[in-house]
């Protein structure tokens, strides 16, 4: 892991983005508490992506929350769609929809489905949730940008466990062939999947080497270090003639100490006591929903 010329990034920007990541985490915790056992979501997987999503939505991506279908916008695909709450929180905090809607997560007639739905939620660029599909969809968007001579970029977050899906490697094989310098894959590598550690179920290592051998630029970072995140995304956004993958080493459940690396939080409702502890740790306010 290393910092990539990160010293030039303004300290205030880093502090601002860290603050946004914290707000996203607070909203994730609130959602996963309010909806209760019957509609339990995936808090830990969402928390591990929070810093990356904050960097994308509050700094890196060219977007306009008032024009979610703006044709020039950068695209984002949450291929690990079960982490939907991190995306919903970011979209609400950026103003795509009223933040009060977050409490309607997974409810009937709601706009916030259990997994992202591009037709129901303003700002969602691609339906996702069935693992392994997002990178290929990103290739399609990136090719469309080139056909239309547009300079938008496509960011795709995948889980490391998700990379056990064969389709990920069909995508990995084809993106360099199409010379998609406008495609940036970010692996939220928290080392855990639903049933156990990724390395114990089907190991991915040597993971970075695999991507390099498929023809990708690769950057490895600490996925919770905002400087690393920003500098790697900036580098990835200005590349050569091939796609870039950022392998972001993360901690599942990051930010809520009792969830960190405890895989029982893969999909679980947050009870009142846990909710208070989590919000207090994140510096939020338990009284306002």
């Amino acid at each position, binding site marked *: 892991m290393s910092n990539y010329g990160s010293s030039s990034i303004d300290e205030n920007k880093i502090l601002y983005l860290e603050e946004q990541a914290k707000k996203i985490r607070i909203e994730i915790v609130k959602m996963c508490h309010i909806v209760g056992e*019957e*509609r339990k979501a995936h808090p830990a997987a969402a928390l591990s992506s929070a810093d990356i999503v904050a960097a994308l939505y509050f700094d890196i991506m060219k977007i306009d929350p008032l024009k979610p279908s703006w*044709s020039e916008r950068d*695209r984002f695909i949450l291929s690990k769609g079960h982490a939907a709450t991190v995306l919903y929180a970011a979209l609400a905090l950026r103003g795509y929809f009223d933040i009060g809607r977050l409490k309607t997560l*997974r*409810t*009937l*007639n*709601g706009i*916030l*489905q*259990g997994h992202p*739905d*591009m*037709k*129901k939620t303003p700002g969602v*660029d*691609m*339906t996702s*949730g*069935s693992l392994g*599909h997002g990178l*290929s*969809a*990103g*290739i*399609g*968007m*990136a*090719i*469309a*940008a080139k*056909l*239309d001579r547009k300079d938008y970029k496509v960011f795709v977050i995948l889980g490391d466990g998700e990379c056990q899906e064969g*389709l990920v490697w*069909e*995508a990995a*094989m*084809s993106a360099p062939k*199409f010379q998609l310098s406008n495609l940036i894959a970010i692996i939220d590598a928290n080392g855990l999947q639903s049933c156990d550690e990724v390395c114990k179920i089907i190991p991915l290592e040597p993971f970075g080497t695999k991507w390099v051998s498929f023809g990708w630029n690769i950057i490895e970072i600490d996925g919770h270090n905002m400087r690393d995140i920003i500098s790697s995304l900036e580098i990835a956004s200005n590349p050569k003639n091939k796609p870039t993958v950022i392998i972001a080493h993360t901690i599942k459940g990051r930010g809520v100490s009792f969830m960190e690396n405890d895989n029982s939080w893969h999909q679980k409702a947050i009870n009142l006591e846990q909710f208070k502890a989590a919000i207090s740790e994140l510096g939020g306010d338990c009284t306002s929903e």
Partner: protein
Amino acid sequence: MNEEMASTRLAAGEAMLELARQGADIVAISADTSKSMYIDLLKKDFDERCIDTGIAEQNMMMIAAGLASAGKIVFAASYSVFTSMRCCEQLRTFIAYPNLNVKIIAGMGGLTAGTEGVTHMATEDLGIVRCIANFAVMAPSDAVAVKKAVKAAAFYRGPVYIRVGREPSPVLSDDKSDFEIGRSIMHKKGRDITIIAAGLVLYEVFEAAKLLEKQGINAGIIEVHTLKPVLNPELILSEAMSTKNVITVEEHNVTGGLGSVVSEIIAGNGTIKFKKLGLQDTFAESGTFDELLTKYRLKAPCIAEEAIEMIK
């Protein structure tokens, strides 16, 4: 055979080329099938709009979804076994559910895979894809109809599945005859029996009607080139009611395809009262099991209500 013969898959490629020449914002994507599915026809003038994903059909469908999300009209062409089964989830979750403009050209449909055998022969594809909400499902009967279907699909909002054959087959229609996605065609009104066909076997039905005529049996012929949606079910129903005898003919398992389409129409409208409770060709949404049963009218009170309504 004296009939004019023409290739349906070539017709699909020609239609795509015409669309591109007319300035339609299409992309043609294939999975090492650019030659066999005639995507190559576009390469000379529209090379940039031709994408080959190699032998990776699922990747092809997902790239198609991504392209369509960015506004392109995408034609994805491979063999029907792969387009319907290997790619079933991509069709359902990422193309049909978001209702994207991806048009599937499904080659070697039905029995036309012939000597390749069952590994390359889709006799379930129409039924599989028909089960997916938002999909229009078509099995045109000749090259002329395929051309019309492909062009109509480009301007149809949402996903379309078009089955085509392999070798040249008899030309049964002409450029002038009306063609609309979803509108079944009555080729001949019958007195004694109604024969309903989908796809290339329509030719055999025409021939069968001639044989029957010699026996003094007057057979009506209806072509259901679109298995979903069926916009004029009253045509099938009225002919079925008047002839009292109906046969369906298809190169497909009798479960799920044309036979099911026609039986659903007849059973739902005939003298025997019949109603299907369930998801009415729609996707559901997030909600608890109980909430969803309620919303989609599958709870006991709804079932009882439907029963009372039916018998009163």
